[in-house]
Every structure is written in C-alpha cells, then in structure tokens.
C-alpha cells in the first residue's frame, strides 16, 4: 500500500492537462487458485505511450489483457477490481466485451495475421463492425490503415496475396493495420517486437511514435532500451505487483524504488 500512495502523490504532481484514458483500481487476477496480479492501480494517459516492463512472468501481459477483457477467453481466469475507460467501469458482467475490444485494439507478441489476403485481413474488422457502407469506403479504410501502419507502399500491388506470406516485420505491421482499421481509442501491444529482427523493430518503433498522435498506446516490452525510446510513462512490474510507475525519464534516470533500480541496471531479471 505504501507504493500506491507514493504513486498517487506523485501522479498528482503531473501536468494537469493530461486526460486519464484508462484507470485501474485494486485490479487482481487469479488463474484458478494462483493469483497472478495483486491490486494494480494504474492510470493510462491519453495520447501517450505507456511502457510496462519487468521480468518475464511478472504479470505485465496479464495486465494489458485485462484492459480489453481478453482474459475472458481463458477459462480459469478471474479478474477482480475496477477498470474504468473514460470513467466508465468495464469489468462488469453486463459490459459488451465486443464493443470494448472495438475501442481498445491489441497487437500480439507473435504476428498472427489471418490466413486470408492482405486486404481481407485489414477489412475484417470494418466489415464485422459495419464501419463501411460500401466497397469504396472499405477500400479507403484499408488503404488508410495500411498507410498508417507504414505498410502501404510495400503491399499496395499485392493486396490479394495471403497475409501469411509477408515477412515477420511486415506481418506485425499488418496486424497493427488490422488493429487500427476499426479506429480504436487505445492500442495494446504485447511485446510486439519480440519476434522481429532489429530493422523491423526500428520500423515498428517509428510507427509507435507516429501512432501516439491519434491513439493511446500501451506497450509491454522486454527491452528496457525500447521502453526508454518509445514511451513517456513507464510502469515496472515484479511478481504480479506494480512496483513503480512514473515518467519514463524518471524511472530510467532516478527510480524511487531499489528494485526498479536493480532491474534497470541489469542486476536481476
């Protein structure tokens, strides 16, 4: 409880113009009898990139999967506590999870394009949500999404080829295009570069920087340098607890917590 108090105190010292997009209070997750997250209190700021770091198995992926209710997919998983999006509680039985996921997109660790054409991959979301009244609008959506994902120039001549035929980095950008095709408010990225080579990683990072203008982004990453490069805020997770949450600069230069310090300087992890 001491950490939480500190975070909140420091949070209040921030720029008051920042709008909180998602906030979680006392968020706990259980896999069967095993507790995976302990009372997470965290605020995600609109149009900023928030990075979540920590050793593997610390619960950061579990955390972002709570935000778009993807943990519902796992049978044994139970999520307790409050998650508010724009001040509205979403962790209730009555919430339409499909609407939540329409507003909060997700990019996964391993690129998972559907085994369909590139065009259909991007058009799938708009189709099921009825975002395009006719083919022309759909074409525009697909084109814009691919452009935003910086993939358009590479694939514009082969939109009908299968998305699975692209290279790893291209596949991941296709997945990003797919995620932004339905114009979400938030994009959750679960270690989006872990399966990619450095060049593809650089491209994705560039893209994240570009995307934050229009979206709120949460990125889980293994790489501290990546967190430092792309994020404005950083949270450090350890063994299912949020140890420290602050401005990225602060975390990397002068963390409050000894454990954070140790992790960042590579003493454990």
């Amino acid at each position: 409880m001491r950490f939480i108090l500190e975070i909140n105190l420091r949070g209040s010292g921030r720029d008051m113009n920042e709008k909180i997009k998602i906030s979680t209070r006392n968020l706990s997750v259980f896999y069967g009898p095993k507790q995976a997250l302990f009372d997470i209190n965290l605020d995600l700021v609109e149009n900023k990139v928030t990075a979540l770091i920590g050793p593997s198995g610390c619960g950061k992926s579990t955390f972002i999967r709570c935000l778009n209710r993807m943990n519902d997919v796992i049978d044994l998983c139970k999520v307790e506590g409050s998650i508010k999006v724009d001040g509205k509680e979403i962790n209730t039985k009555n919430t339409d999870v499909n609407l939540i996921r329409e507003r909060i997109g997700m990019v996964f660790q391993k690129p998972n394009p559907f085994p369909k054409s590139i065009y259909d991959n991007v058009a799938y979301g708009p189709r099921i949500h009825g975002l395009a009244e006719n083919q022309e609008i759909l074409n525009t959506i697909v084109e814009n999404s691919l452009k935003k994902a910086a993939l358009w120039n590479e694939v514009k001549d082969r939109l009908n080829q299968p998305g699975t035929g692209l290279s790893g980095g291209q596949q991941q950008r296709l997945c990003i295009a797919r995620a932004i095709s339905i114009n979400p408010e938030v994009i959750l990225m679960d270690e989006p570069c872990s399966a990619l080579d450095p060049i593809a990683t650089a491209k994705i990072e560039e893209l994240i920087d570009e995307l934050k203008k229009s979206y709120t982004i949460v990125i889980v990453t293994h790489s501290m340098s990546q967190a430092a490069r792309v994020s404005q805020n950083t949270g450090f997770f350890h063994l299912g607890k949020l140890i420290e949450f602050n401005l990225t600069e602060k975390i990397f230069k002068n963390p409050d917590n000894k454990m954070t310090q140790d992790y960042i300087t590579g003493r454990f992890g």
Partner: protein
Amino acid sequence: MSKVEKIKLLKKRYKAERRFKFYGILSVCLAILFLFILIINIFSKGSGAFFKTEILLNIKFDEKKLGLNINSSDKEIQEANFEEILKDALLVLAPKVPELKQAELIDMVSIDAALEVKKFYFYNKGVLNKIAEVPLTLSDDLDQVYKGNFPRDIPEERRRFSDFQLKIFDDQISKNKIVYKFNWSFLTNADSREPELAGVASSLAGSFFTILVCLILSFPIGILAAIYLEEFAPKNKITEIIEVNVNNLAAVPSIVFGLLGLGVFLNYFYLPRSTPLVGGMVLALMTLPRIIIPCRAALKAVPPSIREGALALGASKVQTVMHNVVPLAMPGTLSGTIIGLSQALGETAPLLLIGMIAFINVVPATPIDPSAVLPVQVYLWSESAERGFVEKTSATIIILIFFLIIMNSFAIYLRNKFERKWS
C-alpha cells in the same frame, strides 16, 4: 564366462535378432499378400461381367407376322409381338430341328431377346420386310461358356447347356456371328432374375440417394456438434457425457444401428421401409461420430493466436469461430467426412435390417422409393445359385471399390493440398 562362450552367446543373440526381424517382415508381407490375393481374386472373377457375348442373328421383319406397317405408331410397335420373328430367325440356325429341341434353341438367347428385337426395330424402322442382322444378348450359360468359366468336357446331364446348344454355338463362332463387347447394360439395367440382364443401375441409384441423405443429415449436424464441443462447450457434466457418448458410438457395431432404425424409424415413426431415406438416416447416425471426431481434431489444430486476433478486433465468439476458425478446419473436416461417407457406402448389415434387401427391378427415382444399395446387391447376388451372378457380384464389388478409391483419394488430396501445417 570364457571368450568362446561369449562369442557363442553373441551368435545366438544375433540369430534371435535376425529371427525377430524376419517375423516382422513376414507379417508385413503376409498382410500385403492377403490384400493382393483379395483384390486379384475379385478382379479376375469380376472383370468378365463388364463384357458380354452377343449373337448376330439375321431376322426377317415380316409385316404380316408383326402386324405392323410403315406408318404404325410407336404405341402399335410397343404392343406388337416380336417373339415369332425371333423364333423364326433362331430356327434358321438349325433347320429341320425336332419340336423338342426348339425350346433349347430359344433358350440360347436371353429371355429379353424379343424386347431387344423390338428396340432394334424402334430405331431402324426402315428394316420392315427386310432381313437385318440384329445383335442379341446370349443366355448367361453360353456367355459363361464363351468366357471359359464353364468347362465343356463334363457330362451333358451335369451341365446347364446341352450338346445341341453347344454345337450350334460353336457353329456360330466359326461363322464369326458371336461378338464379344463391352457390357453397357450392366451399368444401365436394374436388377433382374436373369444374370445376363441384371445390372447395377438400381443399386447405384439407391446408394447415391442413401449417401446423399446421409450427407445432408450428418455433415451439418456433425460439424455443428464438433464446433460446439470444441469451441463453446463449458467444462461440465453434460459436455462430458456428450463426449463419452460420441466416442462410444464410434465403436458400436453397425448392426445395432440397424436395430435402432428398425425399432424407431420403421416401427415407431412408420417411415417407409426399404427406402434410401431411412437407410440414409441410419447411416447418418452411424457416421455422425466419425465426422465429429476428425472435425474436432481439425478445429483443435487451428492455433489459438487466430482466435485471439479476431477476438481482439471485437469479433464475437460466434463470429470468430465462423469466420476464422471453421474455414481453416474445413480441409480436415471434409476429408474426415468423405472417409466417414465411404465407410457408410460400404455398410451392409444395418441396411439389411431396415429392409433394403428387397428385389428391386426398377431404378429408384427418389429417396422414398424402395431400393437396394451396392453392398446389399453384392450380398443378394452372392446368395444366388447361377454361375453368372458370381461374375456380377465381383463386378459390383469392383464398382464399389472404384467409388471407395475415388472418395478416399479425394480425401487424401484435400488433406495434403489444403491442410495447413502450423508451426
């Protein structure tokens, strides 16, 4: 242990090794040998049925004897009697034959020969009052003699054909009046009591309708059940009971399904007996677990990342499964279904119990006409005494196996071509 003893023991051990390996090879070879014996046996017996012998007979289409003229309507031709001119033509083969032998002469051609003459006339009306050479199906016994299936040298009283018939037959062979050609009528005729006329058309149609009904029922139900069990079913008692039931039904003897069909479909619901409708329903129940099991395996093989990708886009569970998972599981499901249907196609026992064993001499036109199916036809003909039916039975088996090979190769093709390997 001395060195000599050791070498001796080693030799013994190696000998045992070789022996063991030899048993293995022997078993594999034995199994394959059985397969080849079976296939060669059936093919050597059955290939003859695809050919038949015909006699070219000079028939005089006498106006008066037929009671027809050049302007006769089709109906009049239908009603005309062609037996007499046929008999006249046959008598020409052995002039001055005693009355007694005339019957033997007529028996040389098939019982439907007069019909064949009529058909010939129907398409060649110009032959009225002329003599034309008409090909007529020979009787089954002489057909078998020609194919060498009946020995000629046994005493006459133990044969089904007389010396007299044989003499005329040989005479005709030497005159090149006996032709041997592809037996289309085997594929186009319905069942008959006469081997030379019997064909598989009725049972082919019956099999087609039965499998069609089976497919229409079992495919959608099987897929929906598999999707439910694999994607939606909560982990509870009911799901468990369903799963146990599916697995056990796959191993229930097929004849039990026949009893079910008889007890429930026929005696309780009064559905029409002997029909492909009921046959298809029974086979559908039998095929159901055989579709559900491979379909579930195919669904299971689709990686969860595909489901997560769609769900994260806000697609509902049903949309995710229907749009993204099921299409990927289709190749595996389809090949499983085809294999299930090919088993249904070869199934006999349950169909016997619901009465699909009646003698059907017309080709069924709908699934609610009584009919036989190919394997039942095999059973029916194998019980017949005539030598000609042995050949027909084997030929029916060849046709059945032909369809099975096509279906199974298609299933294998689907699996190899479209099934995705997920890394």
